[in-house]
């Protein structure tokens, strides 16, 4: 951790956790709120509604980690952060509950990086010190109901305080601390990091992002094997090519329909000589 700049334990020293604008979010790949209705936006809305339905069951059943949604995949680069962000935005739009997007993927170019929250305090700090109220670290966005809990920066000066808790416990506590919020946890890939498999028992639902035309079935089997005890595993096929016909019914038709302005048929022309 020597490459991480030590951050003084002074809140003022941190970057102000200002509201994240749509521009910031767009940098991270937000597509759902772009101008007009796009095919991608619709696809995420449909996926979001299904996730919502699933979560509703687990929240209503008061299941453990019912308001936690883990997003993972088999390998890096399959679109976890992208899917998390857009699913979170979609959920925020279609529910009354606040949706908090939690970044637990500490790779360079992670979600926090992209939305400009690299230096903001977040999950790392919560893991280090359970005394920090989570609400104080949550950053609002321009999308109403959508918040971001950044990755955070390890505090080198924190020392051993006795308030460290494992990631799974921290996450579970987070869900319990804000039962009215929905948490979307953006984690690393299952086959490269241990975070998602550690977190899996604490959450009620997991989304496996599968990259179309690339993720191999054997890999997916191996990844699913790591989280086989989980109750609800949902698959999301990402990066499908526009050619694939069996996406969602007459989808391309609607895409085209919304993309083009509806032009009324021209009135019948009357021959002038009549």
């Amino acid at each position, binding site marked *: 951790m020597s490459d991480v700049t030590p951050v003084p334990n002074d809140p003022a020293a941190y970057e102000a956790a200002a509201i994240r604008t749509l521009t910031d979010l767009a940098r991270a790949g937000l*597509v759902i709120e772009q101008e007009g209705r796009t095919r991608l936006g619709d696809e995420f809305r449909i996926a979001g509604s299904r996730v919502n339905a699933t979560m509703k069951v687990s929240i209503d059943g008061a299941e453990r980690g019912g308001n936690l949604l883990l997003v993972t995949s088999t390998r890096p680069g399959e679109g976890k952060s992208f899917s998390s962000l857009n699913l979170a935005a979609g959920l925020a739009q279609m529910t009354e509950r606040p949706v908090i997007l939690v970044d637990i993927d500490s790779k360079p170019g992670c979600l926090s990086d992209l939305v400009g929250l690299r230096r903001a305090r977040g999950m790392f700090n919560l893991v280090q010190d359970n005394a920090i109220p989570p609400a104080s670290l949550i950053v609002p966005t321009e999308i109403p109901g959508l918040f971001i809990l950044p990755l955070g920066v390890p505090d080198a000066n924190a020392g051993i305080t006795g308030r460290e808790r494992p990631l799974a416990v921290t996450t579970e506590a987070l869900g319990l601390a804000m039962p009215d919020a929905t948490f979307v946890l953006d984690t690393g890939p299952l086959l490269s990091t241990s975070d998602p498999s550690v977190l899996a028992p604490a959450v009620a639902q997991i989304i496996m992002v599968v990259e*179309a035309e690339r993720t191999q079935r054997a890999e997916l089997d191996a990844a699913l094997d790591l989280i086989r005890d989980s109750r609800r595993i949902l698959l999301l096929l990402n990066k499908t090519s526009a050619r694939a016909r069996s*996406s969602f019914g007459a989808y391309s038709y609607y895409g085209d329909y919304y993309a083009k302005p509806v032009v009324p048929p021209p009135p019948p022309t009357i021959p002038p000589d009549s």
Partner: protein
Amino acid sequence: MDGLQELLSRYGVLAWRKRWYAVAAAWLFCLIGWIGIATLPNQFEATARVYIDADAVLTPLLRGIAVDSSLTDQLDLLQHMLLSRPNLERIIDKTDLQYSATTATDKERLVESMEHSVKVIAQTRNIFSISFRNENPQLAADVVQAVLASFVENKAGNNKSDIENAQIFLDSQIDLYEKQLRAAEEKRAAFKKKFIELIPGDNGMNRVEAARQNLQLLTGQLADAKARRALLANELAHTDALVVTETTGVAGDPHTDLRAAENRLRDLRQIYTDAYPDVIIQKRVVENLRSQPPSPTIAAPAPGGQNRSAPNPVYEQLKLRLVDANAQLDSLTRQVTDATADFGRLNGIARGAPELEASYTNLNRDYDVLQKNYSELLARRESMRIGNAAQIRASNVKMVIIDPPVAPRLPVAPNRVLLAIAVLLGALASGVGVVVAQIALDQSFHNLVELRAMSLPVIGSVSLAVMPPSLGERIRKVAAVLAALGALFALFSFVLLFFFRQA
């Protein structure tokens, strides 16, 4: 149709994604292949042409009579002779090849490889080429020279020793056949002696059969004889032994006798004088009769033909024939007894050896075959003697070296240009193969249907977020692949040029 389209598009996507694998495979294949070709050693071939005049005059004359070796046989023989182990060893020792093989196993291997690498080819009926390939042109020429030399040596004493060998072979065969023939003869004679009675005679019938027929015949004759005798006996029984002579007067009447005597006397007197003795005798008879008193009683036949009944000649004859028949019957009975005994004896012997006839036939056949072969061999030996004499008189094979072997300047192999082209084709094929293998091994998910096969709930599919690549970018990507392949072809043309120059 949709399914097919989807499948094709799927393959297209995969192939495009794996394009660099294909390009890399092609490059790797080409580089390794071309470097390999460049490092292949040059092969030089030295060739000598010889004219061998297989005697055109002699051949048709002796065909069919003598052991005539045709040209192809000669070539065959030549090849085998040249490539015989001792000959090859001699050739190796004569040339620099000996330095390339130091250990015994190396030499062994060298000899074996020489058997295939020295080529004797009939170009026309009489012209043969002998060629050898080696990395060293001078060595190749030396080897061919050595081969030619050994050919000349061999050819000189060849046909003669050939014939001698054949003669020795024939002699040994004839000896062998003679022995076998003699043995067969002895065996046959012994057999004949032992079973003389049972062996079929010249008329193709054996003795048993003959005895049986004889017995049958005799039995028949016996029956005939018996019947005849019975007939005769019957006849005899019904025939009287005496017959009563029928005369006009009373039989034995002296008057009658007297009258007859007087009549006879009268007759005699008419021919002869009274002094003729017969007349005198007759006179006395008459006187005697006149002097006898006439007796009416039937007396016993008195001398002078007084009997009334005479023996029956038929009866006599029958009696004689009956005797005859009895004798014949006796004779036949004896003969039948003999024949029965004979037949029984022979039959007993024959029954004791049922396979006798078959083995006799076998013996005969063996003997015939042996005799036929033996005489054939004798004829063959004679004809070969004639042929041998003819060959010795004519010097039958002439050999002229048309092209002596020279150290070649240009290599004949490897054909690097052709190999380079083959490598390029192979490289392209390997590129395609890599892609095909990748496609075959691919297990990715191309649409929701495939993902649903995981039997987990699927919440949806999301299109590729980045905008489809612009036209410029697509062109750039295609151009990159084409450039990689173009570079390969450029290298290929350079390699070809290099190899052409070398050749």
